[in-house]
């Protein structure tokens, strides 16, 4: 409640308003306290103060009733909007609004009153404009003609003089009298420095320090007549034609027809249009609910419309019409860009379609808009883990790790992510240990072989040399090789199988090169950990190796089957794959983690790479696997093929070297920070790899020998007992055949999941034409 304002009003309207206010506003505590004190007639403070003004009082009972009824609104503090105390510059442009001559000019107020009011209202810091009337040695006098800021008054006829003392005239050159620059009659703009209201005297200054800060940029000093304020020029015009009415001047002004004039003046007067004032109780916009505004309603409506579309989309999705579903989701997002449900649904669809990155984008956007959305969080976690699995598959372990970590950051209780992360860590370490162990084993085997069958070794070395020579000579293309390999078996099916086998080799080669990369990284990271202490990765010695060898065994077993009754196996294998794919036809739930995932994986592989035979799903296994199988392959085939295999082997090594070279720049960029084991691991990796590739070159003959020795075992195995094979490969190979099944189950769940979904997607793809 603005007491001063109320007092001002009471002063004007007298005791009748006071009594009306008392009766109208007696419920209002603010008024009660205010008027209560005035209730005692003796103390009625303002009313008796100006008895002389009593006759001036407006005794309009209607207005007084109005005031008393609306007093709480009229005298509310919130209405004091025009609080800006700054006196703005009068440099308004003609086109903004109709700049009018001063009101007093129309009202024809006597000069005496105008002069009195001028000295009442003028303030320090105001800009005045005047003509120099006389120049003295202590300064100059000027007669004011108009005001440049603050109030706009008609003062040109009031003969108000102001003194500008010498010390307030800035010098224009280093020497001489500063006043010599000025002449009588010059138009001067100056700031008011001092006012003597009683004696009606003004002192002005030409230094801009006399102006308030927001006007400081205005140049003081001599101005031209064009720089005179617009209102003054209008006022001069009016003087020459005093018959012109306010209305005519206003309506002929350019600014009056400006379409933006209302907005401009509202801003100038400090009226807020976004929160429009009203004296109606029902129109107090502060009482309006935010929810009732058009924008809020539209948003709500759009959201529900979008939700409807999402529902339709979900129905489409359920019956497998994914394109229609996607259309509905996109429509929903068009209607309501930030619709969380639509984003989640579309993300789920993307995830189902295998576009995991797009899915993650959608889920993340949904979570951004609604951080508490449970499904969005859940799906995002799952998709992140899946994507991580994919990346793991692509050997991007650090990326995969970051995805897992992201998922864990979203949901600490999400065990899948934790499992996957642990598995990844374990796996990284495992393969690293495997690498070490292999190196160890090679070393061991080398020595062992030399000791036990030196004779054989020599023989094999010889053969190796011969092979090498031949390989260099040989220029036959791989296609000729593939057409001639397995020529021993004459049937057409065998040739096709050899094709297949050939492909397998190719594949395995590339995979092995990749796996070697992995090994390297593992090796280096373990190196780091070794440096720090062993306790981080206390792994059973046997696990990796056994894992590996089991696989080998399966491979070998398959190989054997392949080799012995050729056409039959072919059929058998085909049968098996068709079976696998059919088992995968059974629709698996999204995100379901079933045991038959390997089947679906296999089926996927068969479908994707149609002629590919059983492909090991862990590349690391290949590393040794490949060698066994390829070597056995060499053995049974002609020299040419052997050369081919060898060449490939060499290429393999080269590729690895190349790879290590490729790694160098990337790892070089990594700062060797001890804080992150990944980083240091990487940089170490580089050295390790160099060493590794070097050592590989060094060990090549021995390795070859060892492999060939293995191969010898294979030959024998073909002929007869399995016991020989086990004997040759060492004691760490378990003999039980059900091991691979367990291995399958041990595969990272997320991988299985992905394969599941991919299979499902493939299946759906296949089914779609039928639906349509």
């Amino acid at each position, binding site marked *: 409640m603005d007491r001063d304002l109320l007092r001002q009003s009471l002063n004007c309207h007298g005791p009748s308003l006071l009594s009306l206010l008392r009766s109208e506003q007696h419920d209002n505590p603010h008024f009660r306290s205010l008027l209560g004190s005035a209730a005692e007639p003796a103390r009625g403070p303002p009313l008796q103060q100006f008895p002389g003004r009593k006759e001036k009082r407006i005794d309009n009972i209607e207005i007084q*009733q109005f005031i008393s009824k609306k007093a709480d609104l009229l005298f509310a503090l919130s209405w004091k909007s025009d609080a800006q105390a700054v006196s703005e510059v009068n440099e308004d442009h003609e086109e903004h609004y109709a700049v009018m001559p001063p009101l007093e000019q129309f009202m024809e*107020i006597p000069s005496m009153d105008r002069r009195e009011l001028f000295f009442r209202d003028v303030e320090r810091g105001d800009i005045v404009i005047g003509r120099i009337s006389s120049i003295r040695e202590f300064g100059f006098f000027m007669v004011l003609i108009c005001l440049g800021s603050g109030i*706009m008054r008609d003062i040109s006829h009031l003969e108000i003089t102001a003194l500008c003392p010498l010390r307030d005239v800035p010098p224009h050159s280093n020497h001489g009298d500063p006043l010599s620059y000025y002449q009588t009659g010059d138009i001067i703009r100056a700031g008011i420095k001092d006012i003597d209201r009683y004696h009606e005297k003004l002192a002005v200054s030409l230094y801009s320090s006399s102006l308030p800060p927001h006007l400081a940029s205005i140049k003081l000093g001599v101005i031209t007549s064009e720089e005179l304020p617009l209102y003054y020029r209008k006022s001069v015009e009016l003087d020459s034609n005093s018959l012109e009415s306010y209305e005519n001047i206003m309506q002929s002004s350019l600014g009056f027809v400006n379409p933006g*004039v209302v907005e401009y003046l509202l801003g100038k007067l*400090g009226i807020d*249009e976004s929160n429009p004032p009203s004296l109606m109780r029902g129109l107090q916009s502060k009482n309006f609910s935010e929810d009732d505004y058009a924008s809020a*309603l539209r948003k709500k409506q759009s959201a529900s419309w979008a939700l409807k579309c999402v529902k339709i989309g979900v129905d489409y999705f359920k019956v497998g019409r994914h394109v229609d579903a996607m259309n509905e989701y996109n429509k929903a997002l068009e209607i309501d860009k930030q619709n969380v449900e639509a984003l989640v649904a579309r993300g789920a669809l993307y995830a189902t379609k295998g576009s995991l990155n797009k899915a993650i984008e959608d889920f993340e956007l949904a979570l951004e808009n609604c951080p508490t959305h449970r499904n969005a969080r859940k799906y995002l976690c799952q998709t992140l883990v899946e994507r991580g699995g994919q990346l793991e598959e692509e050997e991007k372990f650090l990326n995969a790790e970051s995805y897992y970590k992201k998922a864990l950051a979203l949901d600490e209780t999400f065990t899948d992510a934790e499992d996957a992360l642990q598995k990844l860590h374990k796996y990284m370490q495992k393969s690293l240990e495997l690498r070490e162990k292999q190196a160890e084993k090679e070393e061991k085997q080398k020595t062992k072989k030399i000791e036990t069958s030196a004779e054989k070794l020599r023989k094999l070395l010889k053969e190796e040399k011969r092979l090498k020579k031949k390989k260099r000579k040989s220029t036959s293309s791989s296609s000729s090789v593939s057409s001639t390999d397995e020529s021993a078996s004459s049937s057409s099916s065998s040739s096709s199988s050899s094709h297949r086998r050939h492909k397998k080799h190719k594949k395995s080669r590339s995979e092995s090169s990749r796996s070697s990369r992995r090994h390297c990284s593992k090796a280096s990271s373990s190196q780091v950990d070794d440096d720090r202490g062993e306790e981080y990765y206390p792994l059973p010695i046997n696990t990796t190796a056994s894992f590996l060898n089991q696989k080998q065994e399966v491979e070998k077993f398959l190989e054997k089957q392949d080799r012995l009754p050729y056409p039959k196996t072919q059929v058998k294998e085909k049968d098996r794959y068709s079976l696998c794919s059919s088992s995968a036809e059974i629709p698996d739930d999204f995100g379901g983690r079933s045991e038959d995932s390997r089947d679906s994986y296999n089926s996927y592989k068969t479908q994707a790479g149609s002629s590919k035979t059983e492909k090991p799903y862990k590349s690391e296994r290949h590393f040794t696997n490949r060698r066994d199988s390829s070597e056995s392959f060499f053995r049974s085939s002609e020299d040419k093929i052997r050369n081919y295999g060898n060449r490939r082997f060499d290429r393999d090594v080269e590729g690895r070297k190349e790879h290590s070279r490729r790694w160098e720049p990337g790892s070089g960029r990594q700062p060797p920070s001890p804080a992150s084991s990944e980083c240091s691991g990487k940089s170490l990796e580089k050295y390790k790899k160099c060493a590794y590739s070097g050592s590989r070159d060094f060990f090549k003959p021995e390795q070859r020998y060892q492999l060939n020795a293995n191969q010898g075992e294979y030959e024998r195995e073909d002929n007869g007992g399995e016991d020989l094979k086990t004997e040759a490969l060492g004691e760490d190979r378990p003999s039980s055949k059900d091991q691979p099944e367990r291995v399958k189950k041990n595969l990272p769940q997320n991988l299985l999941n992905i394969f599941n979904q991919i299979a499902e997607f493939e299946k759906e793809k296949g089914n779609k034409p039928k639906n349509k």
Partner: protein
Amino acid sequence: MEGALRDGGGNPVEGQLAPPAKVHFRVTRFIMEAGVKLGLQSIPIATACTIYHKFVGESALDAYDPYLIAMSAIYLAGKVEEQHLRTRDIINVSNRYFNSGSEPLELDARFWELRDSIVQCELLILRVLRFQVSFQHPHKYLLHYLISIKNWMNRYSWQRTPISVAAWALLRDSYHGALCLRFRAQHIAVAVLHLALQVYGVEVPADSEAEKPWWQVFSDDLTKPAIDSIVSDLVHIYTMDTQVS
């Protein structure tokens, strides 16, 4: 159909029993409230109210649904004053006004029928008003008067007194009645300013010494009784406010 829009909340008897002035008061109140919620500025709201008052002045009250006229008037005013509105927003805000707390309508066939009726009614209004739907509002005049008064007044007393806000509020509220049709824009502006000054007990400096009172400067053909009659009408609008609601 538009009656269906306010099945829930509207007062069904008002059309038959209440005197026309009260119906118009309610409908213009609706226009103003909807205008605020639609983010309309003062001028388009004034135009919408003027269109409404002019339309109901030319046609029988019970011939059309006044609220439909109001909705179309808002839509038309938006076009006239270059602050275009979407019918969807108008329908949403109106629906919420009639059935407070209700959910926004579904965008079904009924919604589009409502929309069509607004557009059709807009054409009707245009024909009834003979396509004369642009008006001279007092707003512009009032603002210029305020600037002139401000320069003549002591700046501190101006800052202390919310004359411009009060005058603006009075002017906006004046559209509850048909003042805009009965008086010249300049006269309404002066009357509003006069009332605002009186409410706060502010006098124009040296007005008694002047040859011409300030209000006559702004409009030559204005007389003191004319101002008083407008002020009286204005005050009456506020008494109606208490009677209606």
